[in-house]
């Protein structure tokens, strides 16, 4: 028998629970997918571990806050401006900070950590540590089989799917995409075949940061903004990338949903342990790595010649 509390279809507890997990898992997974694919892309093509990736996502979110709340810009226009701004910022960072030291992976790692902290401190100085929020593009919710879902969540999910679709088209159906995939597969051979590996790395960096910017743009209405908001998704994003296989875009996509659903399961099945959702997701990553160290879709990398 159903609850009979709300005016919709009768459902039992199992159906309600499954629907909630499905919706929450899809939304969380989509957001992780968008973040981690960008990260995977730049690693796959240029072997750059960009720890500042989620910091770009934070910068985009604050741009939207500034534009839509402080300056009363149209929210959609604000989001587009934020993405463009973050992309340009990412390209400048690549040109002047990362490219000169690109051959030294450890140096790039440290430089991007420093960059993330610089962004954090800059945001803290400009906006203080007070929590900020951005209005939803569409307020309100609807009910599907007994579960209340925000319109904004569905919009976010839809936009994420569109972006992922466009990315797939770019990578699979364009010459640029072919060049990116080839370089990701074997950088040296791609170079020998006449592809400008350095220029491709820059384009990929722009693409990667744009994805981070898009993530910030679509997620900002669902979140509370703080100068430290880049840290939590960084860990989950890296877990997704490692679980999926470093450099594998397909792997990142699948792993994002695996960990997204894991988080949803933890929250629903262990209410008192909802805060453990991150830990459980990371534990699953470790378990998979013990069985398959290269990740779900990763390959063993050959030694650099």
């Amino acid at each position, binding site marked *: 028998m159903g609850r009979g509390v709300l005016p919709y279809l009768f459902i039992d*507890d199992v159906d309600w629970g499954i629907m909630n997990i499905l919706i929450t898992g899809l939304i969380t997974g989509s957001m992780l997918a968008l973040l981690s694919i960008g990260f995977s892309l730049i690693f796959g093509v240029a072997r750059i571990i960009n720890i500042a990736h989620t910091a770009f996502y934070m910068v985009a979110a604050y741009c939207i806050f500034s534009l839509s709340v402080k300056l009363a810009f149209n929210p959609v226009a604000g989001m587009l401006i934020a993405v463009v701004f973050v992309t340009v910022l990412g390209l400048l960072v690549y040109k002047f900070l990362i490219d000169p030291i690109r051959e030294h992976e450890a140096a790039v790692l440290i430089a991007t950590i420093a960059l993330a902290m610089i962004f954090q401190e800059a945001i803290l100085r400009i906006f203080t540590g*007070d929590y900020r929020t951005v209005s939803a593009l569409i307020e309100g919710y609807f009910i599907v089989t007994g579960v209340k879902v925000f319109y904004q969540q569905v919009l976010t999910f839809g936009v994420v799917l569109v972006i992922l679709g466009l990315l797939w088209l770019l990578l699979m159906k364009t010459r640029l995409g072919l060049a990116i995939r080839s370089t990701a597969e074997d950088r040296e051979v791609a170079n020998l075949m006449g592809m400008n590996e350095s220029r491709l790395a820059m384009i990929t960096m722009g693409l990667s940061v744009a994805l981070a910017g898009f993530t910030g743009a679509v997620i900002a209405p669902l979140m509370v903004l703080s100068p430290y908001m880049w840290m939590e998704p960084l860990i989950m994003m890296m877990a997704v990338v490692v679980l999926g296989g470093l450099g594998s875009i397909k792997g990142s996509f699948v792993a994002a949903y695996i960990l997204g659903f894991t988080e949803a399961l933890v929250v*629903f099945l262990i209410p008192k342990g909802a*805060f453990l959702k991150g830990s459980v997701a990371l534990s699953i990553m470790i378990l998979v790595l013990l069985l398959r160290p290269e990740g779900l879709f990763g390959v063993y990398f050959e030694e650099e010649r």
Partner: protein
Amino acid sequence: MKKMTVGWSILLTAALVMAMCFPAWGRTIKIGVIGPMNFVQGKGHWNGATMAAEEINAKGGVQVGKEKMKIELVKADSNEFLSVTDATNAMERLMTQDKVDFVVGGFRTEAVLPMQDIAMDYKKIFIGCGAATDSICNRVGENYSRYKYWFRGTPFKSSYLARTSFSHLGMAGAVIKNELKVPVKCAIVAEKASWTEGMIKAAEATIPKMGFELVGVWRPSAVATDVTAELSAIQQSGANMIFTIFSSSVGITFARQAGELKIPAIQVGINVEAQKDGFWEATKGMGNYVMTLNTYARGIEVNEMTKPFVETYFKRFGETPTYTADTYSQILDALVPSIEAVGSLDADKIVAYLETREYMVPSGKIKYEKDAQGKPTHDLTWGPGYLTSLGVQWQDGKLVAVWPNKWKATSTVPEVTYKGMVPLKLPPWMKK
């Protein structure tokens, strides 16, 4: 020539002797204000202290024995939300580089405990204005000679916060029974943080004794950005009252999403973000009907000192003071009168004097407690006639006070109602 050299030597020696005998010429009383300065809690620390220092200095300063000394504030950013190490470093700098005479502030328990140890190492009076954990003052009773320089300025301890919150629950529960004619089903939602552990245990034991059904306990992360899963589960449980225990950003997320989803339950408890003027904007108006424990609200008079403090603070800083701004009363009403009474900056003398005092502050009356063995703990006495705090609720964009409103702490004490109270309102979607 020889006579001149001798003359100059005598003059120099005399000057040195005078400087040694009168070391306080131009000397100030240095008070360190330590807190997370990039956050509203630290800003409250600094703003309250600034108001107090300006008020005192405008009157000529503090009478310390035979001389007047002005107050000099030293700002120290503890950065304690991010790093406890930064907090302890900041306290060390106050002790060693700035050589302050007193310290006020602190917020996170995890940071205040080690900062307390540092201040005690240097035997400097440290008045806490933010951390509620009982153990901070229990240390005073357990090791008085070491920890006697610590006093709690605000808020009262966690166990009293819990008792106050249960009074709020009782009031809200009575309104639900009266208006909706249904039994009360209560859910506990508490952020995962050390300060909430004791309160959760107490709530799990107390809520059933109040005649309410406890339907579940949820523990989101303190910085959770999405609690729709928890809210769905809470609604599914049939809860019509949610006991919230939040101090971090999850308070905004929860209130906003619960309001957007029109969860048919009233939120009562502690939501530190809901104490701030910016809460309404942060939740985009979805935080309507959220009730929280608070210290100050505009238009409320706990005593004759309350309104002047709140209105002056509001005029000066454009926002209602939160409890961390009680650095104002701790400097103005606790420290300065004690210094003037003992006539020196000697910490031991001030401690001995201060711990026996009862004195008025804008939020009530302060009297320091003793433990069961009669040893001073320098903790705050709670209850009618002392400190009770307020229960405030967001009603259509305004933060109004709804408790204490004809509140009887026990059957033998008189009712308490502060000037300016209004009735609690249930969300209209609960009545459908």
